[in-house]
């Protein structure tokens, strides 16, 4: 983990209540796919907890990271209103990453839901660099929530599914998994707990990795706020430190 001030160089709304922000700093090489940044909101004490936000892209040449967050409360609303050119206090390199370099695979299935989609984009790009064939299933509530469809399509087959059927497939990510029977060596999933639970049940016994969201305190493993029970019945895992990426089946969802 590294603490640094990062400059907001770009900002745009990419879907309903969904903001893409590009941050520039000097130590972005520290960031791996699946890790999160822990961002301080404001400079005073009106927000005492940082916000864990996933990383959607890294540009080594420009020294930038792209983060995507959903505006769901006062903190993320304030973050949305930060002007271009201003600085944010960021903890970089938090949490575990998808083990891109350590895996032998030819075909990867990426399954994302809502605000769990962004880290899969950075992962997809890194997998493509290794020559891995990437297929994505991205679930959203409705058409107005959909983002990064073109970006994912540029990296491989991409299936969009919406809860209300207003765009793409009608249903949830499992609807696509059932219908398409996509071959893969590993699956990688990130999204709401309900989706991760459904995907893990559907793909039980198959090798894969999941990424979990939870409200955090310290973000470095000291406060025990974001824990999840271990599947073996022996203790727990800290989502901010032992995760957010876990091998499928390691924790109780």
């Amino acid at each position: 983990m590294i603490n640094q001030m990062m400059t907001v160089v770009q900002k745009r709304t990419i879907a309903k209540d969904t903001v893409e922000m590009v941050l520039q700093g000097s130590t972005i090489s520290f960031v791996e796919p699946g890790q999160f940044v822990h961002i301080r909101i404001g400079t005073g004490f009106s927000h005492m907890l940082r916000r864990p936000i996933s990383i959607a892209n890294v540009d080594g040449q420009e020294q930038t990271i792209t983060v995507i967050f959903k505006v769901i409360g006062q903190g993320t609303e304030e973050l949305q209103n930060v002007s271009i050119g201003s600085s944010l206090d960021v903890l970089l390199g938090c949490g575990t990453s998808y083990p891109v370099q350590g895996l032998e695979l030819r075909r990867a299935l990426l399954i994302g839901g809502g605000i769990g989609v962004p880290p899969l984009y950075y992962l997809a790009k890194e997998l493509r660099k290794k020559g891995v064939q990437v297929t994505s299933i991205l679930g959203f509530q409705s058409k107005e929530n959909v983002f990064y469809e073109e970006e994912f399509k540029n990296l491989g087959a991409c299936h969009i599914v919406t809860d209300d059927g207003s765009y793409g497939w009608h249903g949830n990510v499992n609807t696509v998994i059932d219908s398409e029977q996509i071959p893969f060596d590993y699956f990688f999933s990130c999204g709401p707990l309900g989706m991760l639970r459904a995907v893990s049940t559907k793909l039980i016994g198959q090798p894969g990795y999941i990424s979990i969201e939870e409200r955090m305190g310290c973000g470095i493993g000291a406060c025990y706020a974001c824990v999840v029970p271990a599947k073996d019945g022996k203790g727990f895992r800290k989502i901010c430190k032992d995760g957010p990426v876990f091998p499928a089946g390691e924790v109780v969802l």
Partner: protein
Amino acid sequence: MELSTSIAGLTLKNPVMPASGCFGFGKEYGQYYDLNQLGAIIIKAATKDARYGNQTPRVAETASGMLNAIGLQNPGVEAIVEQELPFLQSYETPIIANVAGSTVEEYVYVASRLAKTKAVQALELNISCPNVKEGGVQFGTDPVLASNVTESVKEVCGDVPLFVKLSPNVSDIAEIAKAVEAAGADGLSMINTLTGMTIHLPSKKPLLANKTGGLSGPAIKPIAVRMIYEVRQQVTIPIIGMGGITSAEDVLEFLLAGANAVAVGTANFLDPFVCPKIIEALPDVLHEFGFESVDQAIGKGHERGYEYISRT
């Protein structure tokens, strides 16, 4: 500038330490800075057996503060002694172990186990955790129960000084303070968190899975300062002050109120480097307000001549 201070026979190189529950067992923060910079370290609460704690979500943000309901999650005193303490023992910084329990017997067991290791330099008796159903705060809100558990634990502490961590969730904190002092406490830690709640409007449900949690952060600082000021007038034992400290100026305020040392809690979450930053800033802040040592400032807020502040 002399930053060292002494509490219950324990010499600290400076008065700043991380508060229990906010710093784990030191390993995480130890990756980012040298823990030898700290005056002491108060480690996460130990119970007799391992505790998983409460359901998540366990934290929620509030105005200038946060609520937590971790529920004393810890691996149990045996695992703490065997797996956690050796790391901290590699530092020169004194370790203060927080002792929790559901019964007097459990408090005594845990305190005895920790005191016997000689790895910890002081104990902090946690009779004020608001997030567990049994034990915890019920001992800290009744002067008789507080006195009894203090007396029983003190018997097994040997040479290890015993600080009792007081709850602010009482109408008269000085009454509890006097009771535990009379029961043999070597010092006080104060304050623990205030019981609070926040409700999520879209779901219309409490934001914490436990419904209620302990409020900490700058929002509670004036309460902590007031309580320390009150208690300082009633007891002579040293006080470790805590509750919303974020800066060296806050540290000085607690010292003036009568604290002999301080603990920093929630601010570690906002800035993981806050403790060394406060320690670095402390000499200049003390000097700015006319002090040449930490000890000079302790209790100065009680002296005549410091009472009147111009409104201009």
